[in-house]
């Protein structure tokens, strides 16, 4: 059960106020936290609970589905303990900013640049926040749900897409 997860027990002790939700699904534990404490939580997990590898940083766009439009997702892995943990932080569209995890892991640099490029979420205190996959002069953020599949200013595809 998620309540007995080693990270969840410690997080509930230390950061009880900032935990929004704890979910277990198919054996994977997801902890949703307040974005203001994200760096404190990530550094605590790295330093004290051996979650030393930041596997991935990404985002999900819940346009029209949730009050806070974006969810930034961190996948952590502990090489000594060989277990995973997923940390999520909701980010509102009106204030689509979150602290950069580059101060905790260097690998966050490019991963956050990609989220910035494709979702338009700003990472504060990021050393080099530029677009990475799209060209520097690109307009819009392609992985947002309101960005058309064909790209902006183009006739929608009339054929069948499943």
């Amino acid at each position, binding site marked *: 059960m998620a309540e007995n997860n080693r990270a969840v027990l410690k997080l509930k002790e230390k950061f009880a106020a900032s935990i929004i939700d704890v979910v277990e699904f*198919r054996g*994977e534990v997801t902890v949703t936290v307040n974005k203001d404490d994200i760096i404190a939580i990530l550094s605590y997990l790295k330093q004290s609970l051996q979650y030393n590898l930041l*596997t*991935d940083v990404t985002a999900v766009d819940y346009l029209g589905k949730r009050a806070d439009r974006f969810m930034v997702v961190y*996948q952590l892995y502990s090489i000594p303990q060989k277990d995973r943990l997923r940390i999520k932080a909701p980010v509102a569209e009106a204030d689509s900013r979150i602290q950069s995890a580059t101060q905790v892991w*260097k690998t966050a*640099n*490019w991963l956050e640049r990609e989220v910035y490029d*494709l979702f338009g979420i700003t990472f504060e205190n990021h050393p080099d926040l530029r677009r990475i996959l799209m060209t520097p002069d690109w307009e819009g953020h392609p992985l947002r749900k309101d960005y058309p*599949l064909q790209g902006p200013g183009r006739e929608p595809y009339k054929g069948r897409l499943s």
Partner: protein
Amino acid sequence: MATTEKMTLNMGPQHPSTHGVLRLVLELDGEVITKITPDIGYLHRGVEKLSEHRTYHQTIPLTDRLDYLAPMSNNLGYVLAVEKLLAIEVPERAQTIRVIMAEMTRLQSHLVWLACHALDIGAMTVFIYAFREREVVMETYELISGARMTSNFFRVGGLSMDVPAEFEKKVRDFVESMPAYLDQYEGLLTTNPIWVKRTVGNGVISAEDAIDFGITGPALRGSGVDWDLRRDNPYSGYEKYKFKVPVGENCDTFDRYKVRLVEMREACKIITQALNSLKPGPVLADCPQVCYPPKENVYNSIEGLIHHFKIASEGFPVPEGEVYQGVEATKGELGYYIVSDGGNKPYRMRIRPPSFVNLQAIEKMSVGSMIADLVAIIGTLDIVLGEIDR
């Protein structure tokens, strides 16, 4: 008075040793690299965006085109993630064939890595030899799926079809011949003074830095971190096979070379064990809501045809939730994070590309070394731009 100034040099995107469309903007002090700014995205096809508009089965061919040197590893990670969401059990025969093909893919990908890495440093012969062996893997791909590269062979719930009768002998002959070929490559390289001079002490990255940069796979093991997802978080029945996980000591290009060569020998052992345990049986889960019906039903009965049509056109609903599935792909940890809203298409699919994350460390590995060594560092990172840019 003579003055020296730094020179900015553009390398790529059309450059034979950048392995695709990688562009590096180098800042040089004489021949020494002082700064590297990688520029990627030339091959961006929006796979993650496309997958949000396709049914779960229609996304499988897109995954072939990520790391196009290892299509079956990509398929494997994806189908495992969808199966985890659906909570369906895959028959043993399908799992075993998946392992055989994933390891064949590892051999193929490492052969291409060895061939190109050696060619970049100037050893032409190895290139020709390694591509000769790779051809057998391509033929095996063709035998079972009809395609040499974009195999599209795995399905959610199992495989697209059973393997033909000659498959077993072909694979067995290949893995039996492989150790002798590997001895041949090692004979050409391991003690070759040019090879040793070019690779020992080149591209050093310590274990702490490697983990900090998120490096995974053989590149991390070359830095002495004993971690392999196949052993530590097994999937698709890897817990049944005995194999060694090689680790390096000196964190340099030579150690990463040795790690990958041992991995190829271990892959042969895994394939032999898997072939020995291969028993006849179904290759698709008994789950008609998700899996395609057998082909003889599709061709011979109206119910089978309707069933096939429904799965192919509408797809299948997937329970609401989110999963992350990582597999030990040939380049490192390949992860699929899928968010489902209960519909027949992924609400969001994120691919965690190992090459993308590994490439980030190139600046750490090459600042301070000569420009000629950069070619060896690109080779040792074993990147594929199809996966970096997606």
